[in-house]
């Protein structure tokens, strides 16, 4: 008899197991990854996981120095009432004032949420939005969208200006084909144009926009398929070319922001870079059609001398475990180096934290394509 009861219980559990339950919101989960560092001025960071297209799986993770805890997917839990959560394909995240801004590319929106509570404030409509830049109460968003042309993908992209108080789009300026990252210097906005939709007729220019009247000042001829853009302490602007994955390799160009001309070409392949003080941290994941994925090169460039001062970011051999380095950030206070591993771009990736000397401090799982960092002060 007892056996029969057990059997029935087992069978019914099996049956219940195999039935549908109410769908729950996506819940966050945390790991303690390091010892607490409560004395830090930088409290932690938000990390944007891009998510695969069509999967609606862009997510935001949060790291907290106070507790040494890494929490995955905080957005859904903070905002359970937002239909379809954060959205499809995250592309950039930045903090300005007390608000966090994240471009969600395929969802056609810039998500704005409160820095401290993580609560949704507004979703600003910007079709095919890419990267973010800020200055004097204004947010700038680059976008691939453009007026419909007769030829597919011949459209000129734009940069939209958003007021960070009203959170409304105020102005828009057309730049080049499929604009990517931006830098603001001396009241001028520099935009790297890729033309990525137009293979092999890539765009080759950096657009310079006057922020006063929000008009295009000039296009600087640089190289094909431009992507990353940073500026150093002296106002030099670094822009990376992705190359064409064939004859033209990826490399780095430096623009003189006084003359608005290219002043130097460095033959370093760059897939991501970040500047802290006088150091430009970078890595390149060379890919060519014929040779496939090449060896990843890491390094540090001195922005004063424009010379490579180190050919390593990682000193303890951990780079062997990183399948595809993707996101890169340096904590301006602790100088810790953060690198994400996008794995095969399909599954769950990793976040690595290294000491300034390139020794592994901690590593944890993130979301689907962990990519962009925003430090919380």
């Amino acid at each position, binding site marked *: 008899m007892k056996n029969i009861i057990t059997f029935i219980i087992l069978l019914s559990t099996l049956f219940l197991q195999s039935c549908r339950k109410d769908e729950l*919101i996506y819940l966050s989960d945390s790991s303690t990854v390091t010892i607490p560092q409560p004395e830090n001025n930088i409290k932690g960071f938000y990390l944007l996981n891009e998510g695969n297209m069509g999967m609606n799986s862009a997510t935001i993770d949060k790291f907290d120095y106070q507790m040494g805890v890494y929490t995955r997917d905080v957005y859904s839990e903070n905002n359970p009432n937002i239909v379809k959560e954060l959205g499809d394909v995250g592309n950039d995240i930045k903090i300005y004032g007390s608000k966090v801004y994240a471009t*969600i590319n395929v969802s056609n929106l810039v998500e704005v949420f409160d820095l401290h509570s993580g609560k949704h404030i507004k979703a600003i409509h910007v079709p095919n939005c890419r990267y973010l830049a800020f200055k004097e109460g204004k947010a700038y968003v680059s976008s691939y969208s453009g007026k419909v042309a007769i030829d597919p*993908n011949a459209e000129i992209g734009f940069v*939209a200006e958003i007021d960070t108080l009203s959170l409304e789009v105020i102005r828009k300026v057309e730049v080049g084909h499929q604009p990517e990252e931006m830098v603001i210097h001396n009241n001028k906005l520099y935009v790297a144009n890729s033309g990525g939709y137009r293979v092999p007729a890539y765009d080759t220019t950096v657009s310079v926009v006057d922020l006063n009247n929000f008009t295009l000042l000039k296009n600087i001829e640089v190289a094909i398929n431009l992507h990353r853009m940073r500026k150093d302490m002296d106002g030099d602007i670094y822009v990376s070319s992705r190359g064409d994955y064939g004859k033209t390799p990826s490399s780095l160009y430096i623009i003189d922001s006084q003359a608005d001309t290219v002043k130097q070409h460095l033959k370093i392949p760059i897939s991501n870079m970040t500047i802290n003080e006088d150091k430009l941290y970078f890595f390149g994941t060379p890919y060519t059609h014929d040779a496939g994925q090449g060896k990843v090169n890491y390094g540090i460039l001195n922005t004063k001398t424009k010379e490579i001062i180190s050919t390593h970011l990682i000193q303890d051999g951990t780079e062997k475990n990183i399948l595809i380095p993707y996101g890169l950030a340096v904590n301006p206070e602790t100088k810790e180096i953060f690198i994400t591993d996008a794995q*095969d771009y*399909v*599954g769950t990736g990793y976040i690595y934290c290294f000491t300034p000397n390139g020794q592994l401090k901690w590593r944890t799982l993130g979301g689907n394509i962990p990519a962009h960092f925003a430090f919380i002060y």
Partner: protein
Amino acid sequence: MLSKPQIQVLIIFLIHCLSVHSQEIKTDELETIIIEANQREQLIPVQKLSGKDLERLNSHSVADALRYFSGVKIKDYGGIGGLKTVDVRNMGTHHVGVMYNGMQIGNAQNGVVDLGKFSLDDVESITLYNGERNTIFQSAKEFASASNIYINAKKPHFDKEKKTNAIVRFKTASIQLFNPSFRVEQQLTPNISTSLSSEYIKSNGRYKFRQKKHNLDGTVAYDTTAYRTNSDIEAWRIENGWFGETPKGKWEANLYFYNSERGLPEAFIKKSQETMETEQKLERLWDKNFLAQSSWTHSPFDKYRFQIKGKFAYDYTRYLARNTVVFDDELVTQNLQADNSFFQQDYYLSIAHHYDITNNWDVAVATDLQYNKLNASRKGIQTPFSYPERLSFLTSIASSVNFGKFKAQAHILGTFTKENVKNNQKAPDRSLFTPSLVISFQPFNQKNFTIHSFYKNTYRLPTFNDLYYTNLGDANLKPESTNQINLGFQYQTQNEDAWLKTWKIKVESYYAKVENKIIATPTSSMFRWMMTNLGKVENYGLETNFSTHSKFGKLFLNTNFSYEYTIASDLSTTSSGKTTSYGDQIPYTPWHSGSAIISLDYEKWSLNYSFIYVGKRYNGNKNNIKRNEIQPWYTHDLSLNRTINWKKHTLKASIEANNLLNQYYDVVTNFPMPGRNFRFILSIEL
């Protein structure tokens, strides 16, 4: 018509039946709709749906019907126009050979055959063969795939003095559907007949779906109802068949034309409010398929037969993507645009010979020649197109023995290909040899218990897209290979005197490994993907089928139950090492799945209930973690048919209710399936 409470009672009764039966599955009871055809030559029992059984299943397309076969997984993007592809034993769509009237439907461009396109109206039978068809007298191409699905079009049958058959059908549904069709069969001479059939389908494909999420405390977090849009389809099909018999053989010729235009619904993802209000979706697909094929089987003298088959297929596809949305009072583009047209040609010729050496030993040789060509015109794309051509030569030698209790069949297939391109790098020429061995053994004197086993090795060549697609293709890709081992048994009883006429149980276990699997992964640039041969999948599975056929006076009861357990581990790596999802169950593959069909016939009435269960699985983000989990889905479908004789004509009317419990589910993440819906069919035989 039944009233609502009556329908409810009926459903509850049927669900009850089902649950009772499934618990007693080991003892006895239940039936066969999915016939494991038990022809003499059959070494391995197959799964087959045909005739009336096929008609009364609530299926619109071949893909819908295949859901009832064990071992089959359908990727269904929803709706009538939605893409439906089939995968057998988790080896991948490309390893399933789809044969229409005995000749493979190919797609040299992308290898994907959309089975949602094949309407069931003019289909006589659908058969799934794991491994291969159990006859050695077949074309070399038929040996080439890891599994084969044979779709056989209806052939004319004439009763008594009748020389003309004509049938007119009309279908409509609660999800807009206008679907008239007709079929005429004419006997020209006692040995020659012809058939002509045509079908038109139009639907806006619009249906409602709902997504609801709950907080931990059980309160509703959000509950949203939306309609599927850009899901319209207009399609037209016409087919002409010629059938002839000669004293020592038979011949057949078919002409087929299909023309369609459809919207391509996108994934249901989050969109900004303004996007939802102002976007204009212009993502469409146009298809034109023309097919002419013919076969002739002849036996010039005793012990020797030959078959000649030939085919020409022309496929045109145009893909347009120009979605726009309003921003700053202006219409702007939304995402990557395309306006590409592709033109494919497929020429095929096969000659097979069969010779009986002794009464229980025969041998067969087949040689096939195939030529594929892909042309394209692409607006706004400046990279040169490859214009690939492929010449394939396949040759097979096969032999079978039959010693009564022990039967065996073996073949070796050679595949030789030569490629040519106008631009870019061409793929190297390939020579591949693949063997297979099938054995069947009857351990006791009774014929009702047999054990069978097979081993099969196959290759699938990279498709033109794999090799040459702009910014994606890699001409150096190696062919994918599969190795499959199967062991199973079948037991059946037959008792004409009892109410339970027959019952049958069939169990198959398999191990299948896919190596050098071609996978596309993005590179650090979103514009540049790369193709690698780094995919590897290892599958273990258990498939069971249980069926019964019984009769109570004038009432016939047939049942069929299937259950499948699968482990499919993703052992793919990247060029830098193992990923976090290494060893996880591959996407969209449930561990548990099953189906049930119960049909009742009483005089001119027939009632059919079908149930499909697909257990918990994980989505395309690969890792087996909570966020990627997809809940099980199960649908209950019911159909009621009535035949009415009116003067000399036969009238058939049926009502189908699908997804009775109105479950909102996705087969593919973010492509919601329809909730409860109804279909009405009327057909008149003139």
